């Protein structure tokens, strides 16, 4: 039962990712990304990380994809600036394809040949909000405070960059 569920979901996740990569229209890419994110939330719950699953939906599906769509609407999907210097993208695409395939083969080989002996003992509630909170606010206190510094940087950045270029 779980195996079937895994395959169906994995197929959906990969389909979403393929959609992100191949869609010509940025809006469809964003929607495919949403599908991918939502499916991953289910995986997290299957992996006993319930809180993370919920956060995945709230942050990724609820916020990041919305921000992407917002920007696409703001400037029009086709009008986004080019990522790198202009020029023919065909060589880059071939390189990207090779890189992607090599990465996939290498990672799959490395991971499967790693011969991990997974300890599949049952553990209760390790992904619950309490368990996360207990460790996050004691052992991982420094990263927690650093996260607020990071958010502060992003906040200043949004103000600096999104304003009109004013020239005195």
């Amino acid at each position, binding site marked *: 039962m779980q195996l079937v569920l895994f395959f169906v979901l994995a197929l959906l996740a990969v389909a979403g990712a393929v959609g*992100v990569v191949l869609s010509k229209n940025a809006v469809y890419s964003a929607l495919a990304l949403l599908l991918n994110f939502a499916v991953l939330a289910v995986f997290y719950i299957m*992996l006993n990380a319930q809180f993370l699953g919920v956060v995945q939906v709230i942050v990724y599906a609820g916020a990041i994809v919305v921000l992407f769509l917002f920007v696409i609407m703001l400037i029009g999907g086709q009008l986004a*600036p080019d*990522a790198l210097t202009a020029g023919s*993208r065909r060589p880059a695409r071939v390189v990207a394809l090779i890189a*992607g395939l090599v990465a996939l083969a290498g990672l799959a080989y490395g991971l499967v040949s790693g011969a991990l002996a997974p300890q599949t003992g049952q553990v209760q509630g390790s992904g619950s909000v309490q368990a996360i909170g207990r460790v996050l606010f004691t052992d991982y206190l420094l990263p927690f405070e650093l996260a607020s510094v*990071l958010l502060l940087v992003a906040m200043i950045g949004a103000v600096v960059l999104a304003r009109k270029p004013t020239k005195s």
Partner: protein
Amino acid sequence: MVPLSWYLVLAAALFSLGLYGALSRRNAIAVLMGVELILNAVNINLVAFNRFIVPAAVNGQIFALFVLAVAAAEAAVGLALIIAIYRTRNTVNLEDADLMKG
């Protein structure tokens, strides 16, 4: 019980797709989406390792939580940069859009 290696292969597949997307796309927003896919592949890895290798701990999940937070901040700054470039190039069009104020 789904074995660990399946999750890892799924993550590797998402990583490769994200890599392909980030390298092959020309549109900056699409490149950023490719990067987001890679970050999600990372999170699957972290949570799966946490579940199978150190099931009593939550450090992998906490790392994944921070990855999520960083991904959001990164997207915010990156999209702001994209908008900034768009504005310096096409100021005229956006002045039109300001008419909505009234």
